[in-house]
């Protein structure tokens, strides 16, 4: 990580550059290239002292075949953002603004019945904990075959056949034998593979993967990440990977959306994000992440002081300012917008506000 150099790295880094944009900057929006475009999404939950904003005007996009990381800590709103895409916000939460455009069509405006044509068939979701997402009383084969039959009219026999093929596609050994296994007979990694197989049953274009490897051991995580990368390649699948783990994103994603306290605070091509994180929060997260072989003196990890704010009582101005190492007088006065830092790089931080003058040129030295 070093000084700002002219943006040679961003140019050919991804195919996604063209689609990276933000609701605050309609001019640069390239909706025709995006498969999914979330615009201005807000989700609130009722609270004792009024509605609690859990997702606040979040915007981002995913291009066909692209793998985008949606990163945040607990309470950042990342999982609810993902659930909103499929209209699955749990009650009493409710979407209060925004659009979820899938191939240009606003999913939030659809009736439940119409939405079902998208769920699974066009957009599928994989959850963190496959042990609870699978039904324990039915066999793996039955559950996957059900998923196949939910999307297409095929015979039970044919569906079972397809289920075996799907298990094979996700590299479960002896797929035909595994069809008759119950979820508890599979290991954690194999259950997650089975979940992914089920998600593929409808032949989706977009996979929402919500912390798909968080519950798994690191050697199994490596297998699942490899699988996701292979499926993308083979099926042209776009993936929105929701995770708290920046390292997982670095391994897999082309573009990264970072959320904090319900807001998108940075959106960048992965290369930029890891070399020149634009938002102080992203910088803090990257340096707080323990790295193998970093030769840091024992007990001298860089920490972000304080804790993630409670969405019911967010700090005034920029919600990150109480923890921010680069806080300025303006930061507790007003909330920053997303500013374009470089091509495809957006950060919600006054450091990048063009109106603040040249004192805050993009690409300060990283941590």
């Amino acid at each position, binding site marked *: 990580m070093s000084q700002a150099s002219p943006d040679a790295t961003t140019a050919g880094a991804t195919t996604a550059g063209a689609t990276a944009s933000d609701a605050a900057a309609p001019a640069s929006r390239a909706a025709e290239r995006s498969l999914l475009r979330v615009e201005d999404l807000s989700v609130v939950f009722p609270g004792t002292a009024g509605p609690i904003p859990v997702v606040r005007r979040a915007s981002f996009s995913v291009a066909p075949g692209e793998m985008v990381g949606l990163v945040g*800590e*607990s309470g950042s709103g990342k999982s609810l953002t993902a659930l909103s895409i499929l209209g699955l916000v749990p009650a009493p939460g409710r979407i209060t603004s925004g659009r979820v455009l899938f191939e240009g069509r606003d999913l939030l405006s659809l009736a439940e019945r119409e939405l079902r044509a998208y769920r699974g068939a066009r957009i599928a979701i994989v959850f963190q904990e496959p042990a609870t997402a699978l039904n324990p009383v039915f066999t793996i084969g039955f559950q996957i075959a059900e998923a196949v039959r939910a999307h297409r009219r095929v015979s039970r026999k044919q569906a079972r056949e397809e289920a075996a093929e799907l298990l094979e596609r996700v590299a479960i050994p002896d797929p035909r034998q595994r069809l008759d296994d119950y979820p508890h007979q599979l290991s954690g990694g194999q259950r997650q593979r089975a979940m992914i197989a089920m998600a593929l049953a409808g032949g989706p274009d977009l996979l929402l993967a919500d912390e798909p490897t968080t519950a798994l051991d690191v050697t199994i995580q490596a297998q699942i990440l490899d699988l996701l990368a292979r499926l993308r390649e083979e099926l042209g699948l776009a993936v929105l990977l929701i995770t708290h783990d920046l390292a997982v994103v670095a391994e897999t994603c082309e573009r990264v959306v970072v959320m904090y306290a319900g807001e998108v605070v940075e959106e960048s091509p992965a290369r930029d994000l890891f070399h020149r994180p634009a938002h102080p929060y992203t910088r803090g997260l990257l340096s*707080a992440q*323990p790295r*193998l072989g970093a030769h840091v003196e024992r*007990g001298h990890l860089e920490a*972000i002081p304080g*804790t993630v704010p409670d969405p019911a009582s967010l700090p005034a101005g920029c919600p990150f300012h109480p923890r921010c190492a680069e806080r300025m007088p303006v930061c507790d006065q007003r909330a920053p917008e997303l500013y374009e830092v470089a091509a495809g790089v957006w950060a919600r931080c006054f450091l990048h506000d063009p109106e603040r003058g040249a004192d805050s040129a993009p690409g300060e030295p990283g941590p």
Partner: protein
Amino acid sequence: MSATRPLVEVRDLVKRFPVRRGLLQRLKGEVRAVDGVSFDLHPGECFGLVGESGSGKTTLGRCLVRLLDPDAGGILFDGIDLLALKGEALRRERRRFQMVFQDPYGSLNPRMRVGRMLSEPLAVHDLVPPDERQARVARLLEQVGLSPDAASRFPHAFSGGQRQRIGIARALATEPDLLVADEPVSALDVSVQAQIVNLLARLQDELGLTQVFIAHDLAVVEHIAHRVAVMYLGRIVELADRDTLFASPQHPYTVSLLSAVPVPEVERRQDRIVLPGDLPSPMSPPSGCPFHPRCPIARPRCAQERPVLEPTQKGGVAACFYPGELAAPAVRGLEL
């Protein structure tokens, strides 16, 4: 460090769990969660214990503080036969070894104010006279970076990181010699994890504690441990100084484990050994070397004989017939 007498000597420790199945709960076999483990803990060191789920690291940690009773083997704690202690004698010694748990939400009594939580051990072990306990609680809270007025609040008023600080304060209340921290940061957000790791390292040094730091996250362990043991299916497969273990891992499992850790750098995507398969069932561990079915360099001998821990050329010990043969693909170095 090796010149001084160890604080703890663990020898051939075994802990089995019976496995019962079905309506009648018939005994179907047993899991050897800890299967013959030996090591020493030197005063003042931080001993990292890493492994995947099912490796036995948590069971081992619990045996060390006598939350579980081992089935065989021995633990000498400061010269005392820990496993022979019973009743009042055990209770008295418990003051000297304390545990910090993984789950900062589940490990604190939600109905007990923090102050009482911290003063209770002082009373139980009769460490501080009643009129001085409040001051001692305030000092404990300060030690872990909380304000003294935290004493009057209940656990729910605190964030995960703050609760873990309370858990640490509770463990320190009895002024233990040994602290066993079982996955103390894995339930915390990354931005808070670093605070707790730093706190544990600082407290250990300030108070001269001996610490066992159990974690599945190798990068976290590298930032706090002086020595590291890697466990697989109930056994230690490699043990070495931190720098030795991370710079030149000798056991193929350690090499693979290190290479599986994702690194927050976009350039390193390709450099990974992806181990096939899952951790075998500890109920029926493979013959010979328990790692051989997944090992990239396994040979016929590995399925027949069980390797024991032997010194490696790098100065640690590893349980492998072919230590150092599996090259690490850019596990470290390559700093940008």
